[in-house]
């Protein structure tokens, strides 16, 4: 029954046939698809994969930011930021004249120069490198075709010329070319790395995984021992001194005696590393690169060597030949004639003749050995590019006159850093320690050497105190309220003919305070005129730097009375301190009316009113309001000893 029924339905065969065909077609299609998949995935797979990778991925080069240079207080001395540069593709420029005019106005450049650049037939021309953000915005707003902005890294020195020669500068590609930038380039430079970035259809780049990019590529910071404030004091005093004595150049160094940290290293003329394309002479770090004959500033080291070897004592007498001594046909002169002088006065009056005699008693080999141990003729190891090791000839080649000349600092040469290191040995009780200019990264711990006995070092320090505080050659370095120590230097310069001429190097090396010194200050002025004595030219600069550094560190005496009693009645001293004390000397507006009534005033206001009369009051008690004063209001001001005491009460 069922078979009959099937036979009687003729359409069923067609359905089967159609179904069969459909299945066959499906199978074919599937086979085709699988075949194509096999072809794409297996046969052409590697080739297509690499093509896709080329299309979707791009290598991206990254360079970390250059590290900062900081001073000891964390103030930024050098920092890199990104900055825009403009380039053009001249072939894409549509209206050359209009574009040149627009760009000239946006970039503050001459239109003729811009037009010349735009007219070039190259595909890429730099128009302006490292422009300001404001100018970059103007270029962007102009929307010119064929003009592009790109980001570059630029180095900024926010303090301008401050420590310019020490810091150095970097090139356009960010590599250190001079100074600390060069010697610490490996530390400061950012690391380089190449990463593979994913690229979308519009060319935007992104990262689908970290690829090790979490690693910090930035360069490390370098922290100097420099204090930018002390550096500023040193630079200001040095500039004023070199300018007023019409010197060729100048150097100043301030060192912390306890740590041997260099707090200031100044050169004049100044150099601004923000504008490095200047005269190479300007970026010369004279403090380390110039080795000059030290002159009389070497005498304290001779004294220390002679005392250490027992050649003489502080009170040994030497005859100064009344200012003129001939030795093997060469005349040695003193500035002032002297007869018999004890050793401490030889240093105080800076006698060349007696120094030569002490040197000859000590002998060339022993004197040379001390100078060598103090570091003369060798680099200081401060990692400053192009440091000049100076000249210290072997003692075998020294004739008697050479030994005599070396005894008062002629015939050998040294840079300011070597002088500082040698002087600091005296202040550190005879212990020779290395100088330090970089705090972080910390260098290797250098060994310390004991060169002089403590009593010898202290004896020489006391002699140097006499130079400043007694009637020596360095009285212009006195600071009221505390004692100073130091030594003047006036070295003749060698002419081109090899003889000593009429050009000089004036210098002064000073310590403040004389007992337990805190700061060593060294100032050198090259070829000053008409004055050329170290005590006249360099000592006031050392005093100014010392005064301001001590005030900045809060180490100046507060007691005006002790300041006044400390002042020596010397006309030179008064002229040197007149500028610093001018506030006290100004006529006071309230002078005629006597002492004002200060009761009920705030402490600040009371101090202001007294200040206008040139008086700093003594303050008793705590609080903000004056409750009592001594002397009373209305009492006439005394001509001298204007002392006012204020008693305070809480507000």
């Amino acid at each position, binding site marked *: 029954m069922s078979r009959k029924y099937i036979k009687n339905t003729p359409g069923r065969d067609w359905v089967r046939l159609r179904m069969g065909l459909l299945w066959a077609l499906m199978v074919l299609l599937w086979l085709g698809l699988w075949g194509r998949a096999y072809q794409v995935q297996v046969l052409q797979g590697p080739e297509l994969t690499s093509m896709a990778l080329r299309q979707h991925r791009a290598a991206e080069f990254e360079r970390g930011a250059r590290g900062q240079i900081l001073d000891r207080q964390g103030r930024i001395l050098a920092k890199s930021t*990104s900055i825009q540069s403009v380039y053009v593709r001249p072939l894409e420029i549509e209206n050359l004249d209009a574009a040149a005019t627009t760009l000239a106005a946006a970039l503050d450049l001459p239109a003729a120069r811009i037009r010349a650049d735009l007219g070039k037939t190259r595909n890429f021309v730099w128009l302006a490198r490292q422009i300001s953000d404001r100018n970059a915005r103007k270029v962007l707003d102009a929307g010119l075709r064929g003009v592009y902005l790109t980001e570059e890294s630029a180095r900024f020195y926010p303090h301008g010329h401050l420590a310019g020669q020490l810091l150095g500068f970097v090139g356009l590609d960010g590599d250190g070319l001079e100074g600390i930038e060069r010697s610490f380039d490996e530390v400061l430079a950012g690391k380089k790395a190449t990463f593979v970035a994913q690229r979308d259809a519009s060319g935007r780049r992104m*990262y*689908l995984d970290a690829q090790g990019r979490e690693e910090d590529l930035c360069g490390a910071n370098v922290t100097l021992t420099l204090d930018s404030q002390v550096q500023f004091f040193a630079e200001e005093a040095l500039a004023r001194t070199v300018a007023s004595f019409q010197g060729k150049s100048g150097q100043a160094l301030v060192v912390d005696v306890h740590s041997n940290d260099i707090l200031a290293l100044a050169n004049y003329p100044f150099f601004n590393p923000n504008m490095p394309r200047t005269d190479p002479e300007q970026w010369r770090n004279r403090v380390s690169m110039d080795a000059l004959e030290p002159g009389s500033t070497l005498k304290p080291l001779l004294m220390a060597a002679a005392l250490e070897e027992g050649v003489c004592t502080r009170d040994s007498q030497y005859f100064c030949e009344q200012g003129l001594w001939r030795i093997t046909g060469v005349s040695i002169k003193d500035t002032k004639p002297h007869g018999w002088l004890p050793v401490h006065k030889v240093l105080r009056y800076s006698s060349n003749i007696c120094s030569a005699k002490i040197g000859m008693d000590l002998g060339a080999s022993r004197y040379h050995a001390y100078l060598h141990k103090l570091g003369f003729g060798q680099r200081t190891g401060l990692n400053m590019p192009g440091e000049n090791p100076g000249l210290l000839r072997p003692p075998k080649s020294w004739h008697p006159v050479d030994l005599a000349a070396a005894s008062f600092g002629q015939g050998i040469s040294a840079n300011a850093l070597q002088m500082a290191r040698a002087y600091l040995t005296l202040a550190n009780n005879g212990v020779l320690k290395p100088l330090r200019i970089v705090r972080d990264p910390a260098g290797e711990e250098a060994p310390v050497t004991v060169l002089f006995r403590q009593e010898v070092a202290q004896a020489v320090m006391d002699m140097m105190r006499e130079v400043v505080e007694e009637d020596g050659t360095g009285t212009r370095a006195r600071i009221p*309220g505390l004692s100073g120590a130091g030594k003047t230097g006036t070295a003749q310069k060698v002419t081109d003919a090899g003889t000593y001429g009429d050009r000089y190097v004036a210098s002064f090396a000073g310590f403040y305070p004389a007992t337990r010194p805190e700061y060593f200050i060294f100032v050198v002025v090259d070829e000053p005129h008409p004055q050329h004595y170290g005590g006249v030219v360099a000592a006031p600069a050392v005093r100014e730097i010392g005064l301001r550094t001590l005030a900045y560190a809060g180490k100046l005496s507060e007691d005006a009375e002790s300041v006044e009693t400390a002042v020596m009645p010397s006309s030179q001293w008064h002229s040197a301190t007149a500028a610093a004390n001018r506030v006290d000397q100004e006529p006071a507006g309230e002078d005629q009316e006597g002492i004002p009534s200060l009761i009920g005033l705030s402490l600040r206001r009371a101090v202001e009113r007294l200040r206008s009369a040139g008086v*700093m009051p003594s303050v008793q008690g705590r609080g903000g309001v004056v409750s009592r004063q001594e002397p009373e209001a209305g009492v006439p001001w005394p001509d001298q000893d204007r002392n006012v005491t204020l008693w305070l009460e809480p507000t």
Partner: protein
Amino acid sequence: MNKKPRAKSGRGILWVVALFMGLCTLGLALSVVWINIERMDLAYELKQLQTELERKTDLQAKLEVERMNLLSSARLRSLAEEAGLRQAGPGQIRSMSH
């Protein structure tokens, strides 16, 4: 008599399992696609944030340089001179520790 229904139910289970596996595969495939889309979105977002961070870091660096320039000793000194201030001399400095 008992064999036929058992075979039928076995095939049914097979179909159910196959269907389940198919659905799982589809679900997993869709998850992979969704995760990839999310990954791309995150990469775009990350890139934007990175660009923003770089821009802000750069601005901060510029501001720091500007701040240091404004606080430089030379500038403060000239401002002090304009304001009529002068350097304190010995005996004119008081340390207020309270």
